[in-house]
């Protein structure tokens, strides 16, 4: 069924082609007179001491790791959902066990305070 993906490929080419055309056209059409102040970072007050690569709070890493765990759960739920009508009661029990195990982890994460953003 690769034939169904041919229009997607064309759509990708057209969309990226349009985006590239827009960027190149504005590069050619627009005027460019950069000065030192213009290309400085957009901040107010005294001249900026840093260059934007600030330190990142650890909470963002926690969120990223939790996302990986729970997104895998979502991925497993998709094929199950498609075939659920055929699986019947067996599918129900299987998935209840699966979701139950994940819920234990979810409660643990919650109690540990990983979901807090004070």
């Amino acid at each position, binding site marked *: 069924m690769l*034939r*169904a*993906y*041919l*229009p*997607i490929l*064309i*759509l*990708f080419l*057209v*969309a*990226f082609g*349009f*985006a590239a055309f*827009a*960027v190149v*056209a*504005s*590069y050619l*059409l*627009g*005027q*460019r*007179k*950069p000065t030192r102040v213009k*290309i*400085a*970072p*957009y*901040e107010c007050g005294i001249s900026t001491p840093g*260059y*934007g690569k*600030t330190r*990142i709070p650890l909470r*963002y890493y926690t*969120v*990223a790791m*939790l*996302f990986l765990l*729970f*997104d895998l759960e*979502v991925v497993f*739920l*998709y094929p199950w*959902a*498609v075939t*659920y*009508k055929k699986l*019947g*009661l067996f*599918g*129900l029990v299987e*998935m*209840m066990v699966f*979701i139950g195990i994940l*819920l234990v982890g*979810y409660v643990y994460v*919650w109690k540990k305070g990983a*979901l807090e*953003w004070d």
Partner: protein
Amino acid sequence: MALLIESIVKVIVVFGIFLGFVAYMTLLERKVLGRVQVRYGPNRVGPYGLWQPIADGIKAFFKEDLIPANADKPLFVIAPMISVAAAICLIGVIPFGDKITLFGHTIHLRITDLDVGILYLFATASIGEYGVVLGGWASGNRYGVIGALRAAAQMISYELALGLSVIGVIMISGSLSLSAIVAKQAHVWNVVYQPFAFIFYMVCALAEINRTPFDMPEAEAELACGYNIEYSSMKFALFFMGEYAHLIVVCAVATTLFLGGWQGPFLPGFLWFLIKTFVLVFFCIWERGTFPRLRYDQIMHFGWKILLPLTLANIVVTAIVMVV
């Protein structure tokens, strides 16, 4: 060969129409927001301000194109392209009408029909998130980096609930193909079976596209625009178009999954599709004029502690009801 020509014609026609919708989406939003705030909105360029999007587009091309001194130049240029191209690619799998006969050919009103249409939607939407995150990161600006970080954390948090909210629909339809899901809704719309899933989907979708109660990544008041702070000229316009294209697409997907897609009495299919989609688009503009912005901790709490358990509960209840 016939498939190739048909595909190219379809893609170009749909792409052109969609781009027109995206352009006039900006005008619609400004008009409706204006009315919400008891003012007129743009009405100087052409009758009722109808040429405003064209004027804005031409202006964007001729503006000075600044690249900040400490920006990561390749990423800085590529990021807005990713953002808009991924949003446009989302229309590839959405069926927007019944089949019609033209010059003796039977043409399905959709670009293509993938067996894994919903997975394609989520995957491509995730690529679009890279545009926002890389754009903020490559700017070399602290506001931009903070905006990008917030965008990343918020989008992945709500992507979970978004993915979970449509599983009920997949269980009822037994398919990931959007055309099959529309066909299953010939008599009863999915929103009747899955009313809560519809609400969860719309809330998560608003968070996915960084729209007002959830527009933390570009909070004007504290981040001075967030991830697109250093962007100017056409690159800024591309981010903007990507956002509006994504908005139209999430409303079109909501129509397809929950509101029966293009099906409806009397009028032709694509008209029904447009009507339903624009009712949802109008809702998105309306709520922007109504709700204040949430704080960031409130957004993360709502996503992880309320939406995630609720969408899981929705799946469990659906599963039990379908077996019993």
